[in-house]
């Protein structure tokens, strides 16, 4: 096993050990005074209302879906970035190396603009936005 693996293992060990150690330490040191207010869900100071199992606005999922898709697309940009400099040194012109990625991004942008225009990223129902994709006909 090479030394690189040893370093990685050490890093992982420390990464996991540190937070666990600190939580353990603080629980040992702090006084324990249980009361109702402490057990409540923290909502930035607001008093929570209702249960946790309520239905989210469907738009929430829309945004989540958009996120998933565009997030995965970044995975395709990554290899391109890594090889960009090597490719340039290999001989082809800047355009030849850049153009495919520009086309890729262009397509993504057209999609994003379309989704935007169709109200997929509007957070809440408003008078000006058409809710075609979600309305209950």
């Amino acid at each position: 096993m090479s030394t690189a693996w040893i370093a990685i293992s050490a890093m992982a060990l420390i990464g996991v050990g540190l937070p666990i150690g600190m939580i353990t330490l603080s629980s040992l040191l702090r006084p324990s005074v249980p009361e109702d207010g402490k057990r409540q869900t923290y909502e930035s100071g607001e008093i929570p209302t209702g249960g946790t199992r309520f239905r989210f606005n469907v738009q929430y999922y829309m945004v989540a879906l958009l996120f998933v898709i565009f997030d995965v697309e970044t995975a395709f940009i990554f290899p391109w970035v890594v090889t960009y400099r090597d490719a340039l040194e290999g001989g082809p012109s800047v355009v030849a190396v850049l153009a495919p990625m520009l086309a890729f991004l262009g397509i993504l942008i057209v999609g994003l603009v379309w989704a935007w225009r169709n109200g997929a990223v509007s957070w809440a129902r408003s008078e000006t936005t058409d809710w075609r994709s979600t309305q209950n006909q």
Partner: protein
Amino acid sequence: MIEPVQLPDAAALGPALVLGLTALVVFVFDSARPHEPDRGLLAGTTAAGSLLALGVGVWYMIAGVGVPEPDGAGVISLFDGQLVVDQLALFFMLVTAIVTALVAIASYDYMDGHAHQGEYYSLVLLAATGMATMAAANSLVTVFLALELASLPSYALVAILKDNRGSVEAGLKYFLLGALSSAIFVYGISLVYGATGVLQLDLVAEAITGETGQHVLTGNAHDVAGHDGLLGVGIVLLLVGIAFKTASVPLHFWAPEAYEGAPAPIAAFLSSASKAAGFVIAIRVFTTAFPVEATAGLVGFDWSVAFAVLAVATMTIGNFAAAVQENVKRMLAYSSVGHAGYALIGLAGVGAGANELVLGAALMHLFVYAFMNTGAFLFVALAEYWGVGRTFADYNGLGRRAPIACVALTVFMFSLAGIPPLGGFLSKYLLFWGSLQAGMLFVAGALVVNSALSLYYYSRLVKAVWFEEPVTDHGSLAQPVGLYAALIAAAVMTVVVLPGFGPIADSALDAATAVLTS
């Protein structure tokens, strides 16, 4: 001969690129006015784009792309062989473009009053792009990508009538089975990759036939024969993925429901273009990557036998089930399963030592089928537009109300049944002849029996529209321009295709020869 202009090589993908760009244009149009879409503009752009793609494809064909060097421009290979543009690819790009154009024109009337116009047309175009790319895919990577590009929009299209329970149910079934089969397909790809170490089809073939004990690219020690189990299972799983796309047994279950529930133009689109694209992949993958003898030597079985079995099972199940349907659209759906069985004969013949004729005949059948089947489903679209109902009995007596459309329907039905003066006859005839020459007597027999049976239910529909008394008075029926235009275009092509069979047969045979000898 037209000199091919000096475009970048990627331009050889012309038809696919044009379709994809048109999809983007439709997106832009729809983004400009998302709330009150201009239906005419969207449908027109779609139709224009597919016709342009058709034109580009025809131009390449005339320019001799794919014809070997001395006479033509040669096969164009792109991205290190991941995509190839040859005669087979162009042939199927044409089929896709034609069907897309017909569907776009017909949808103008059919989708009147529905929401999601922009989505509809752009999804159609994206799916068409996927199908056109499938035609050119020459690596298991591109095959899978193109397949998914064609499939994903199709799922959404089937379910696009969001308030119609049938449409949603159809979409769900199509999607779930599609996802399952694509998972199986990609698993098959991974196994083939494991066995051979490569994904490009010609390299796979090289690895299988070579037996050098070395990896074909890296030269590392790797013996394909030692991984015959992986390869065998992988091939079977690939077969399953392809069977899904072509709606063949045992993956035909989605087809009746998806076609019945989907908007009729989409059913036409899926059962013609999508199926044809599935076949081009089947042909490309199996003839290029898995040479029959070498593969049989490695894995022990001859895959063309599997295709022969599937062909007989598919045509029999499709036709028998079609014979007992009451719902016209569902009958057409099953008949479409039956026709997939006919086309599979082309692949079954590859191993039986047949020459290019059987495969060429299968290509011709797919070409003719694109017109007659699209036309038949478009008639159903027209009937749904009129709101006359879905069963045979509801179609009674339509001939008096809408004679032109019913003449077209008659043409489609008789052509599907394979009656001589129409396009469907000759391709079926050649399939039959070819399979007989290849010595596949059983398959040939099944073909004849099934054709005879199919005449029963096709003529039943003809009888209903012309001879039966209407159950209810249909009143006067509208004549929507777009639907009629698409219907008549398909009917004319179905008729014209027979006397003009020469060029089609030539290009189909050339494509078959090219793919078999490469």
